[in-house]
């Protein structure tokens, strides 16, 4: 399970770096809005990158509860195991 989480965390880091145009490191505890200064629009673009990377659709209603990179990673893993 750890490797799965590591993979999605790494992809979150890559997607965020791509959208923000600067290299960022993320851990489970990284707060997406506060620590990464990601606004709602940038978050949507990050999500689109992740959807492509994992070939999933992340429903907007499920994103509402996401605050940290760990939350997002868990959501991605939930959606992947469901699929």
């Amino acid at each position, binding site marked *: 399970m750890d490797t799965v989480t590591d993979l999605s965390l790494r992809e979150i880091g890559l997607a965020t770096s791509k959208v923000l145009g600067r290299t960022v490191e993320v851990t489970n505890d990284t707060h997406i809005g506060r620590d990464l200064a990601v*606004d*709602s*629009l*940038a978050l*949507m673009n990050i999500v*689109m990158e992740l959807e492509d990377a994992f*070939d*999933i*659709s*992340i*429903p*907007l*209603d499920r994103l509402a509860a996401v605050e940290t990179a760990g939350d997002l990673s868990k959501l991605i893993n939930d959606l992947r195991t469901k*699929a």
Partner: protein
Amino acid sequence: MGLFDKHLAYRDAYKAIQQAGADPFTVRFDAVVSPTEGVVEGRPTILLGTNNYLGLTFDEKAIAASVKAVQERGTGTTGSRIANGSFEAHVALETALAEFYGRKHAMVFTTGYQANLGVLSTLVGRGDHLILDADSHASIYDGSRLGHAEVIRFRHNDPEDLAKRLRRLKDVPGERLIVVEGIYSMIGDTAPLKEIAAVKREMGGYLLVDEAHSMGVLGATGRGLAEAAGVEDDVDFIVGTFSKSLGAIGGFCVSNLDDFDVMRVICRPYMFTASLPPAVVASTLVALEQMIAKPHLREQLNSNACRLYDGLTALGFVTGPAASPIVAATMPDVERAIAMWNGLLQSGVYLNLALPPATPDSRPLLRASISAAHTHEQIDQVLKVFAEVGTALGVIDGQQRAFA
């Protein structure tokens, strides 16, 4: 901790904008004297940001019908149609809309925003899938939050990405409702509707097109993008508004689907709002007739749109993908967007300042909307002012002065 503390970042950003000059969000017109002319701080001002595409706000017949209705039927309905009943004009307007679109059913809402809120939250529910273009209007996003369907976004104007999303839902139960707009309100681009309709036919689902900015603007008879793209049979629902081409306020939805009228007793944004006042319904009915009777307004509008679009592009401004009644110039940064907006207003040109996150790709925009009622002289004056202010602020280099 106060209630507004969580909004402090917005307050600070708003203050910074106010300090740069006039407040773009509270511009006050001392007078509006025609569809294209107003007065701001005593200055005659060209209105270039009012979505008044056909210039029908001052149509004499529409005004006369509105005056007659307010005298004969009063100032308001004072309640919703399910509680207080309908006036005959509400029904007449729905009949006229259904006939115009060649569809069996039409339902009128009190605003365009509520039409999306009501329709999207009612058509799909728990276990269904709402699939939105990523650049959808706020009313579409808010409608998606009011309902209980799963909400998925596809990349703006990307039929292949839409197909990908639908493929991922293969074998997943529930209905699918795809939502796109005829003309997107920020930069005026249109949806690739032919291709999107093809994806819908192949993958299944329902298709809703919001023609708020394209009604009266696109299509041989003004029915919008679905008509222009020749795919009206693939479009299950059309949502629109009376507050743009028809010069009033209100929204609607038309459809051929059986049982459409059940929405009248389950659609909360329809049920729990007072219905449109008689004067508004009366002017809207006449404006619809005028729109149908005067196709040359559409030609005039498109010719005006090209004149502004070509002129701004020739000056070196970064404009949208094609000429449309919405012409947006992308500004290099928020600071210069605000300065440019102020400079234009000081020089007698009013348009819209659009800032991220309400704009695509986090780019600040100056958004102009053209009217059939603009004269060539007004558009040339706008281009002259754009050239002067844009050059002074270094938004364009001032060397490209090729516009006619």
